[in-house]
């Protein structure tokens, strides 16, 4: 019922995640939900979990990750999930989210490193790998051309740190090991 009442639609769009075709990252306006691992969803979304259309979710500051059951595909159920998610976002009080900074940071850091930042570093002959995430601190290893590169501090602060912080403001720091 509430699903059809899209009085003012919530601004959102899906983006693919490089590592897994079954995950979509739904970009939503910041401030609706607190980041963390959801333990309870509002009815429209809870139904999809009960039907085992969806199987997992994490909440970023301005995105929600949804994992689809492996036997389903997004082109088939995408529109239905979008409607449900839109409805669920219009009732933020129906969500229960456990704080899990490091789990979120792990996903964000991995995406940034595998994404555009990693490509830039790769194009300069370097390589970057995520070592670990703990207490909002990200440990990376910079190898290849990076190991003797004078711009290493610049890359850490202005590319990796900045990109991760844009999506996860609780980031403490990024350290190269």
């Amino acid at each position, binding site marked *: 019922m509430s699903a059809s009442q899209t009085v*003012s*639609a919530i*601004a959102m*769009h899906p983006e693919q995640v490089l590592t897994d075709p079954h995950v979509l990252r739904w970009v939503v306006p910041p401030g609706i939900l607190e980041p963390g691992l959801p333990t309870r969803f509002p009815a429209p979304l809870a139904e999809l979990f009960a039907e085992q259309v969806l199987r997992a979710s994490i909440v970023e500051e301005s995105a929600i990750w949804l994992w689809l059951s492996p036997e389903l595909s997004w*082109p088939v159920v995408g529109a239905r999930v979008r409607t449900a998610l839109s409805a669920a976002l219009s009732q933020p009080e129906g969500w229960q989210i456990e704080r899990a900074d490091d789990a979120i940071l792990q996903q964000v850091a991995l995406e940034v490193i595998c994404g555009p930042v990693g490509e830039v570093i790769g194009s300069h002959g370097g390589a970057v790998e995520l070592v670990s995430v703990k207490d909002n601190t990200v440990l990376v290893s910079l190898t290849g051309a990076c190991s003797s590169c004078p711009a290493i501090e610049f890359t850490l602060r202005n590319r990796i740190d900045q990109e991760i912080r844009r999506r996860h403001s609780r980031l403490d720091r990024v350290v190269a090991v």
Partner: protein
Amino acid sequence: MSGQHCEPSGRSTTDTRGLDRFALVGNPNSGKSTLFNSLSGLRAKTGNYPGVTVAKYEGRARLADDFVVLEDLPGTYSLDAISPDEHVVVDVLEANGEISATPDGVIVVVDATTLRRSLTLLAQVLQRGLPTCVALTFTDDLQRRGGRIDIHALTNALGVSVVAVTPGDRGQVTNLKQTLARWRDWPAPVIAPPTDAAETAAWASSVLAAANYVEPDSDARTSRIDAVLLHPVWGTAVFFAVMFAFFQTIFVVAAPIQGWIEGIFAWLGEAAAQLISIDWLASFVGEALIGGVGGVLVFLPQIALLFILIALLEGSGYLARAAFLMDRVMAKAGLEGRAFVALLSSVACAIPGIMATRSLPSARDRLATMMAAPLVTCSARLPVYILLIGLLVGPDERYGPVNLRGLILFAMYVIGAVAAMSAAAVASKISRAGGRLLPFYMEIPPYQVPRARSVVAAVWSAVGAFVKKVSSIILTTTIILWLLLNFPQHTDAEMQAHGVDTSSEVAVSSYALDNSFAASIGKAVEPVFEPLGFDWRINIGLVSSLAAREVFVATLGQVAAAENPEEPALALSQMKVLDGPNEGEPLFSPATIAALLMFFAFALQCMSTVGVLRRETGSWRWPAIAFGYMFALAWVAAFIANRVVGAFG
């Protein structure tokens, strides 16, 4: 029914079959056609889509090692299929479209400075599920005006390839070509954008935010000027002042140049009279070529100036404001702004104006505008007006500080504009069944100094078109007229039998003219035009101007040159009424000139326009209605003008 002959007939035999096809889709003014030209190297093949009167542009582009076919679809803001243009775009993108083969890939051309609006169209294209990529144009403009876009992030958010491309930039065009070559591997969005309007708008907002889109600033200087120029009162006052200065300029600046050209033709006429000893050839060259065709060519400076001024107004960004101002007036008359754009195009020529009605979504508005467009003062009327106004008032007559000739010309343009808008309003009122006006987008570009190159290009093509018209349709009609005016030939005995003094050259040529085929035609239609003060010589001018309005000038030039080859201009102003109650009085009295001006303002004397009306409406019914109602209007207006001016004069 043997297999060999079962090839589908009527298909183009050029080798576009089997090649990959791409369709270009985009908003009007998105740079789509420029990009199309840049990709296809201007080797476009034009035609029509079957069943609808929308032009089809197809071209071939060379990728790395293969040719592909590009189809430039009409500019559109949505795929809602309400106008004929949109209907074509929808049909082409449909899997089993009727009027064109489905393309292998779609290139959506998106203007980076108006990204939000373009995304609505992109969403609709993506819902069609064809392989799609985005060509992002005007990124240089966006940056210059303080806007910003992260193309990488935009690609991620949309889920399709985005290529920034400025049509003039060779590197970027090559980049797009490489993308086209890989169309089989183009990424597709996992989920098509939502269809609901509110959800689509929300989707677009989200995509723009993710791409860090910053809209370009509207220039501070532009907004200060617009505060005045778009003001309902001041803006309208400025608009009329600009138009007024416009027509003063046409007379004041072009007159001396026209004088020089007339001098050249007078010299040519004298030389021809002296050098050519064969009588009929001398008459042909002197009357038909120099008097007739030359008589039209002397108006080249005015035509050039008209288009220079239009190009300057357009290039500076003022014309779009004028359209915006007039849109408010039009809306009151129940017409939408797009109709005004069509009427505005008719200032050059009614034909592009009629073509511009293709963007009108409602068939009724389209017809209403088509019925009105030929009333707008087109550039073909300009030589006729200038000739007639020149006969009416002297070059230096003034009304206060204002050149009187320029003032009358301005009045003629106002009459044309008012007549066209009233006709459109009436026509749409008759046919409209309470339909509402659809929303209308109009670009309001920032003010800028007009580019010399585009001004020159506009004037060059207009002057070229004028010269081409003069050397084809006007020359042909003039030659036919020369034959009609000089035949049948009469023997001396025949003339003497009618009491003509065959030793007087003037008497002979006057008799020949008065007994020519042309005179018979002119006299045959005399009952219709007699109440307007026209004699057979004017009538033959009116009949021949059905081919093109300028022929009227050529005809009068010919008749005058036949009467007095030395000074045709003088002969024209001294022409006398040949018979009837006013015999011996000047033919071109103020009353007759006023009637002629009114007749030309309203009558549909242009067969090309009739032909285009026939093609665009698909039947002879509407051109017949247009011709009929405009003739009636012209006759009545000319009659009133003749009587009113006659009473005062």
